[in-house]
């Protein structure tokens, strides 16, 4: 899923300071799963904004609503009768949501209520970890099903750098060295040979480096 974290209320308050009516818009997709942008969080943010604005002596009217998904025009359409009533929408979906909203409702100010972090999942309760960098050409089968592109701090493809220590990456004792895992797994499974092969430079043309991406599946295009 896409993992996000809430922006501080003060930051959001500064965004909406000139607006009279604000709609906090949640999403039932990834951000609900990572406890940051679902119906529950929309409610919490809305009341936090109400309280904060009252404290400041401004009285912003805040409402809340949550969509099935914000990365789908069909659901974005659902709020067409509500959104125009508000001066601003704070979307607490991932970065996709506020952009779909901005494109569909050009006359309404749309603000991001979360910081979109990465593609990953929960490894323990309350702990999320990155797994994929969306490079556009998956190669993890060469590395025992583990991704050095997203998970090695230097995206190394030919083995661990000289900073790998006690299973941790040189950048932090809190970050696992994925190469340590890749090598150990290969050794345990007697597949070391695979790692001895030279892995050539990757084409980043399919990654964001190749420009903003689009995917067209002719058979689905109506």
């Amino acid at each position: 899923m896409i993992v996000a974290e809430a922006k501080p209320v003060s930051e959001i308050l500064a965004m909406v300071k000139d607006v009279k009516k604000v709609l906090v818009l949640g999403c039932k997709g990834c951000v609900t799963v990572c406890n940051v942008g679902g119906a529950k969080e929309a409610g919490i943010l809305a009341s936090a904004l109400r309280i904060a604005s009252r404290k400041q002596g401004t009285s912003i009217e805040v409402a809340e609503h949550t969509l099935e998904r914000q990365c789908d025009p069909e659901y974005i359409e659902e709020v067409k009768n509500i959104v125009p009533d508000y001066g601003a929408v704070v979307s607490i979906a991932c970065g996709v949501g506020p952009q779909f909203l901005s494109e569909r409702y050009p006359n309404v100010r749309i603000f991001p209520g979360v910081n979109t972090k990465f593609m990953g999942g929960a490894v323990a309760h309350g702990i999320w970890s990155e797994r994929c960098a969306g490079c556009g050409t998956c190669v993890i089968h060469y590395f025992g099903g583990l991704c050095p592109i997203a998970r090695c701090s230097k995206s190394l493809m030919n083995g661990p750098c000289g900073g790998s220590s006690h299973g941790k990456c040189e950048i932090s004792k809190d970050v696992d060295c994925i190469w340590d895992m890749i090598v150990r797994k290969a050794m345990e499974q007697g597949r070391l040979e695979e790692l001895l092969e030279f892995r050539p430079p990757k084409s980043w043309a399919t990654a964001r480096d190749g420009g903003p991406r689009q995917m067209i599946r002719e058979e689905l295009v109506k």
Partner: protein
Amino acid sequence: MSDYKAGSNLEKVLKAGHFAFTGECGPPQGANIEKLKEKASHLKGCVDAVNITDNQTAVVRMSSWAASLTVQQEGLEPNFQMVCRDRNRLAIQSDVLGVYSHGIRNMLCLSGDHQRFGNHPEAKNVFDIDSIQLIKTVKVMRDEGKFMNGQDIDVPPRLFIGAASNPFAEPYDFRAYRLAKKVAAGADFIQTQCIYNMERFREFMKRVVDMGLHEKCFILAGVTPMKSVGMAQYMAKQVPGMDVPESLIKRLRGAPKGKVADEGIKFAVEQIQEFKEMKGIAGVHLMAIEWEHKVREIAELAGMLPRPTV
């Protein structure tokens, strides 16, 4: 002559069978070219080539190619270092052509320290290719006269290709294999991380020799003399992938007041003596960080002077 891949002094010294001795010089954190010349002057006549670091520890310094040219003008042979952190494949290849056209003949290929602990932690990193891919790139440019995209190079750059090896990083069992990968990719010589744990290094070299890697490339053992107990403790605890045994820290502590640095040098000299005899070791790479003025003394004590002329 035509047997030489690049014809650098370092290559000639190694191929003539001499025990090589290389040094290191960090470019200034500014345009202070006089300071760089002063540092280099201490190494003149003491080493076969001097590594010029490339924004080492991710701290911005004068560019390694510019400092390499300066050092070359001062009469030393540079070993131009390049990290993959700061350049994409376009910049890498153009810099390789650039340094070669100015007479640089050695190059050390590195991944580079992550910028997180440098002085610009907010920088975007590149890592378009990794160090092993860099080695291969420079080799293909030299031997096949081709760019990474397969296009022909009109005059191919002929560089003596170096790589680093850290025998002490984990997973230990993979380290000799990683060295093998670097050699297979085209490394002509290897400079190791600073060695302090001699026992572990002996084991590592045994594996390297068993794999026959010492016959396919020249391995230079990395030595950094300890200046103080504090430095030893810092390296032991703070530098990832560094192995400083407690016995060495004890030895430095036991030195009489004001004599710790001398003890550090003594240990370094003992190491060099052992490396001279160690199977598979073709030379020593002395990284006397901000201690360039001590290099002559160490070289002398270790019996490395005068340097051969080939």
